[in-house]
């Protein structure tokens, strides 16, 4: 069958199915949607080379056909109506993606937000925590205890003094000495 006659046959079939759908024929409507999907897909690929985005456009068009099926005039051809909806949806998709790309960038690393340290191994904070651990262990006990209580656990001087048995003055001196020791250790590393 020559293409023009094929296209005419297709137009006639789809128009008949659409008339039935406007009358409430569910089976005919479903058949119509399945038959027009490849046609819409081929048009959508003119606007979206990416097959996933093209499929989004196809689904957009099918939803649109469903919502405005009452605007098709049965005395007029069906394919131009469908093609116009597809073109409109394709253009809208291009514009939407363009707007999004103007304001957002894709960052694969940002997707990794798990709390487990191994998932964030590339994160600088985790590396810093792993490096400082051995250095803390190298400090004298009273300096390490004072630093952990005041700076890492956030206790007040009074709370840390009560817990450790050191006086407030001794805590202050030990924190100061611990920080100096860490700086020295980090410089020599």
């Amino acid at each position, binding site marked *: 069958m020559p293409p023009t006659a094929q296209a005419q046959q297709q137009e006639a079939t789809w128009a008949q199915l659409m008339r039935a*759908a*406007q*009358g*409430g*024929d*569910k*089976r005919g*409507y*479903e058949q119509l*949607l*399945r038959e027009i*999907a490849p046609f819409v897909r081929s048009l959508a690929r003119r606007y979206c080379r990416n097959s996933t985005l093209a*499929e*989004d456009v*196809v*689904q957009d068009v*099918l*939803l*649109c056909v*469903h*919502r*405005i*099926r*009452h*605007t*098709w*005039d*049965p005395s*007029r051809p069906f394919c*131009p*109506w469908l093609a*116009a*909806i597809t073109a*409109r*949806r394709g253009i809208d998709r291009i514009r939407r993606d363009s707007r999004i790309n103007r304001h957002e960038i894709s960052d694969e690393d940002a997707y990794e937000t798990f709390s487990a340290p191994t998932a964030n191994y590339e994160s600088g904070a985790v590396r810093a925590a792993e490096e400082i651990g051995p250095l803390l262990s190298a400090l004298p006990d009273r300096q390490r205890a004072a630093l952990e209580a005041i700076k890492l656990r956030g206790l007040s001087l009074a709370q840390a003094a009560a817990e450790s048995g050191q006086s407030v003055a001794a805590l202050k001196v030990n924190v100061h000495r611990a920080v100096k020791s860490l700086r020295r250790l980090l410089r020599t590393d």
Partner: protein
Amino acid sequence: MLDTNSLISSLGGELTPAAPLRPPLRRALLWLMLVGVVAALAVTHFARLEIFMRRMEAPRVALENLSALLTGVVSITAAFYLSLPDRSALWRYAPLPPLLLWVACSGLGCLQNGSGMGPAGARLGESPHCFEFILIISIPLGILLFAVLRRARPLAPLPVALCGALGVGALAAFVLQFFHPFEVTVVDLALHALAVAVTVGLAALVRVRALASV
């Protein structure tokens, strides 16, 4: 997101009958007839028709008023056509010829009548009322028009809104002529144009919500 086959099954399952809309020309004419009847009743009861008819004896005035009416009718018809996906996008340009004729005739009138600041400067006091009149008529007409255009759920609401708003603004300006017992001056024209522009601007701002696009 659903895959396409599941979507199709879902849409098929929820199908209900949907009667097709009447052709756009018929819908436009019905709307215009309804508005025309109401306007005719108002004009018959409240306007000074003898003054209007006297003014219409001047060819320029007659052409100006007719081009305002034509701008309104063509713009509203264009809005109905543009609300459908498979109608020509060239309809958006259809109001241009009568609009240009209307502006040209009004402009010629201004050249003849001046700014209205001279001996007939008292007329300047009426221009703000013209602005209010056009807006007071345009806004409810616009709401009524958009309520009808919404049924088509236009995919591109902006040209529909712009043509519709231009149409109601032009019709309001035409109806104004029945209550406007003096010649249009520069100030009048500027305020008429501003009123129509405000109507069109408002329509552009609310187009999505007003026309409920898909």
